[in-house]
């Protein structure tokens, strides 16, 4: 379903703490693409995505979402973007339906549309029996699914997920992957960080490998194999080889 136009265009993105967390990063994700960003702990994946989602101000660089300058016109960029972190951002004292009503209100979605969408999303994620129970008694997986439904209720064109499968059981992970696959087939763009390389290998159209705040390799699995000169390697072997090379260079 890729259209070829850029859903996300990042140029020279930089963020420093005591050392560069993201170092003049260039990244382009095409519309309708499932893009997996992988890298070792502390590589700068989350920092990059938080800057893209407008949660963190970059020190330098530009972020463009569907042609909208996300740093200059942040509200317009956020209107078409959703962010899901590995720690579910939900309210213990709200029910899933109330939570989705709140999110839809924040994004200014018509109540009738939002309600139908909320029911569909929650039910398809297996939360149908829990629609009117407060989230305080929910497991980590259920909370993550509520957060994901909240991210999708405003029908975003760009969905950014930071380790969305952390803590999910096999059935829940399958629900989430199914829902994300459906979104990509419908033309939405998904950018996801993950440590589960099999997921990236199986689901992503393209994979970006990030290390020390820089993109060290990018492409389809086949392209990555070609770049590394080993046609039979798994993504895990490629990843370790790329990261080792980068660590040695550093």
């Amino acid at each position, binding site marked *: 379903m890729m259209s070829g136009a850029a859903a996300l265009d990042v140029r020279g993105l930089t963020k420093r703490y005591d050392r560069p967390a993201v170092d003049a990063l260039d990244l382009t994700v095409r519309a309708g693409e499932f893009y997996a960003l992988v890298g070792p702990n502390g590589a700068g994946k989350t920092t990059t995505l938080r800057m893209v989602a*407008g949660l963190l101000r970059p020190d330098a660089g530009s972020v463009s979402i569907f042609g909208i300058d996300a740093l200059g016109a942040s509200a317009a960029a956020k209107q078409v973007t959703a962010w899901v972190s590995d720690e579910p*951002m939900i309210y*213990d*004292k709200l029910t899933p*339906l109330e939570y989705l009503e*709140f999110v839809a209100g*924040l994004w*200014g979605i018509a109540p009738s549309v939002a309600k139908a969408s909320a029911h569909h999303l929650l039910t398809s994620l297996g939360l149908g029996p829990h629609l009117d129970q407060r989230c305080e008694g929910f497991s980590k997986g259920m909370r993550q699914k509520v957060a994901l439904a909240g991210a999708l209720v405003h029908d975003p064109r760009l969905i950014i997920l930071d380790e969305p499968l952390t803590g999910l059981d096999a059935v829940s992970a399958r629900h989430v992957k199914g829902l994300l696959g459906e979104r990509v087939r419908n033309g939405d763009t998904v950018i996801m960080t993950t440590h589960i390389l099999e997921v990236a290998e199986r689901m992503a159209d393209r994979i970006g490998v990030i290390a020390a705040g820089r993109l060290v390799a990018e492409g389809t699995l086949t392209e990555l194999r070609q770049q590394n000169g080993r046609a039979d390697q798994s993504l895990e072997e490629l990843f370790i080889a790329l990261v080792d090379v980068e660590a040695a260079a550093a």
Partner: protein
Amino acid sequence: MTSATAISWFARHELRLAWREGLAMLTGGRRRRTRTAVIGILLFAAFLHLPAWAVIGRFAELRAPLDPPSLIIVTASIFLAWALILSQAIESVTRVFYARADLDLIMSSPTRLAEIFSVRLAAIALSVTTMALLFATPFVDVLVITGGARWLAAFGVVIAAGLSAAAIAIAITIMLFRLIGPARTRLMAQILAAIIGAGFVIALQIAAILSYGTLSRFAILTSDAATALAPDAASILWWPARAAIGDTTTLLPLLSASLLLLGGVMAIFSARFADTATTASAYAVARPRGSRTRAFRRGSRQQALRRKEFILLGRDPWLISQTLMQLFYLVPPALLLWRSFADSTAALVLVTPVIVMAAGQLAGGLAWLTISGEDAADLVASAPLSPSQVIRAKIEVVLITISVIFAPLLAALVLTEPWQAAITACGVIVAAGSATSIQLWFRVQASRRHFRRRQTSSRLATFAEAFCSIGWAATAVLALTVPVAAVICGLITAAIFAASWKLSPRRE
């Protein structure tokens, strides 16, 4: 590991946890602050001797045998302190039950759970008693310094009060679990703690207002009616008072009785502790809330934010108990107000500082919950709203809530004393505005669950908020009585407010 070794090992573990939790409460979780926190506490404890001297210094010369009014006042004061300790103990016990932390680990270990949990109950009693001793020390110090070493026995009374309060708190909480279940116990326990803490003073004030038209609780305690109703001097009711002034024949039985009470509660309830705590931590809120058929509501993005805040505030057990307590404290002034419809009294002026102070304190708590206690900060930050729109919506929630709570009192005041109502309204607005602004300037991202630690995250903000509430309350009452002094007091409070802005990390 033998039984005795296991108990002593677990006791050390509990003490270490209690110490670190206490330290974290004082330092806001920053280890480097420990020395500063200790110095601050020592200075604060030294400072507390001044108000302690003002409050209790006049009792230092009391000697046995006490006359009936003195017995009544000392006994009532001890009972008041005990009620406050009990209130704190209920809060502590509830917190232990709902803190899952190590429960799975302990219950999966091959130890005798009844013994282990009896240590945990003893640890609760120890921490409650230690806190009581810490707060009582300045008062007892004043009595010892000015009245002699015989007052050291008052420490024994405090220990007895701490142990007995902890025992009763444990029993009350576990019985609440049995009676109303874990889902309601947390809220009920907090409300109960608030009512017990404030109830005795307020009951005395109400009796004083109804009988003498004054807010002073001493009016009722020193009345002839109270003396006539009091039992004779040999009664067991006076044992705490007699023990406090150095009568060891009553102190030793008191200490023994409180230890026996605690031992009995531990023997009865330690075996049930595991069940209760497991149920509390694992309870699933399975009861449906709201309705699936209800339509999603229309409105702007800011309205969605405000609605969410109102729902969360309405479902916050801490806030409900605190608001009830604030409202509870407003009962005596409201009663005074009601009485003054028929009989105008100068005491009515005391209503103003109570209302202004309550508004400031409540606004500070509300502002923390709405501004700092945002559990889904990333979600709100990733929404298509500017930060200023988010903050504005949250501030509106605080101010609307304060208006709803205090408007009825102000409306009643308008009917009796319009000028006083105007001054009080100004005081409420300024106090609520100050407390909200301070919370805004010192905001830090936190979970609502950490509300109890809000005062340790910035001590400066805590003191600024408290001093501003007190300052505006004093300014308002002085505006009604000594306008020139009100100007000075107002300027000092404004200076504190400005200084807190200057020192704040976010000057917006």
